[in-house]
């Protein structure tokens, strides 16, 4: 079963992302939730995760640092990372690309936006994994 880790300090935002993915037919995935970057890192070092979806602005450890930590780690840098943000900010976008983000998605998230990103990154058959 595919494991998707959703990281956001807002439980609502995490549920919105999960619901969007579920209505796409990816409901067989296991969804893991983390409220900040530290909690997300604790999960990914302990178990295999197929995708991380993270917000940027979070307490304790923000999405920038989480992305950077994932992408510089030889053990973790194979995990695709989607960053979701309400801030349409060219400087931030450039920074995320430099850090190795796989997708930058602007809020509000919607099933079509996520479907395109999921299929392009994980493949169309991935939902059956």
């Amino acid at each position, binding site marked *: 079963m595919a494991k998707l880790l959703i990281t956001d300090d807002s439980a*609502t935002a995490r549920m919105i992302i999960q619901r969007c993915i579920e209505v796409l037919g990816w409901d067989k995935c296991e969804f893991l939730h983390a409220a900040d970057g530290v909690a997300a890192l604790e999960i990914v070092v302990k178990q295999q995760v197929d995708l991380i979806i993270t917000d940027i602005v979070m307490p304790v450890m923000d999405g920038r640092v989480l992305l950077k930590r994932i992408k510089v780690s030889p053990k973790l840098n194979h995990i695709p990372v989607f960053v979701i943000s309400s801030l349409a900010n060219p400087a931030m976008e450039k920074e995320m690309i430099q850090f190795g983000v796989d997708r930058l998605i602007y809020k509000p998230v919607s099933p079509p936006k996520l479907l395109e990103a999921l299929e392009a990154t994980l493949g169309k058959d991935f939902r059956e994994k």
Partner: protein
Amino acid sequence: MSSLEKLQPIFLQALTETFENLFFEDVVLHGSSWLDKDSEFPESWWVRIDVLEPLRSFLILVVRKDLMVRYTEAIFGMIEDQMPEESQVLDNLGELMNTMCGRILAIMLSENCTFKLGLPVVGEGKIPDLADKYFSLNCLIGDNLVFLLLPESFYFSEFAPK
């Protein structure tokens, strides 16, 4: 056409995109009004987000409590006898405002313009730290009125459409 008139379609687009995507609801413009700092919104919550860059201002959204409870029940997939915790409803309101403000500024500002928002602050009753008079864009969502409040520092800013 004044800045305020030019801002209205921007706000309506941002509200529509946000409510449609998050809650599958249509938003209809239901006029506008000038309110003073003592205006009250019974049975409602307000949420304020400060705009930190490139302008210094803020936006406030006022939503009826029962509407936010209904939205929260839907998002968390609650069934009839389950009631969301107040913290879940307020988190939902903060997320709604954060998304909507991001859309407003993304639509209003040029593509290469960076913007920064503060964290949402939620409350009920009298809204603190308001100037004497502010503009309210009134929208209808189903049978519920939702108010988007703008201070002078927003609609008179150099970034507002001229």
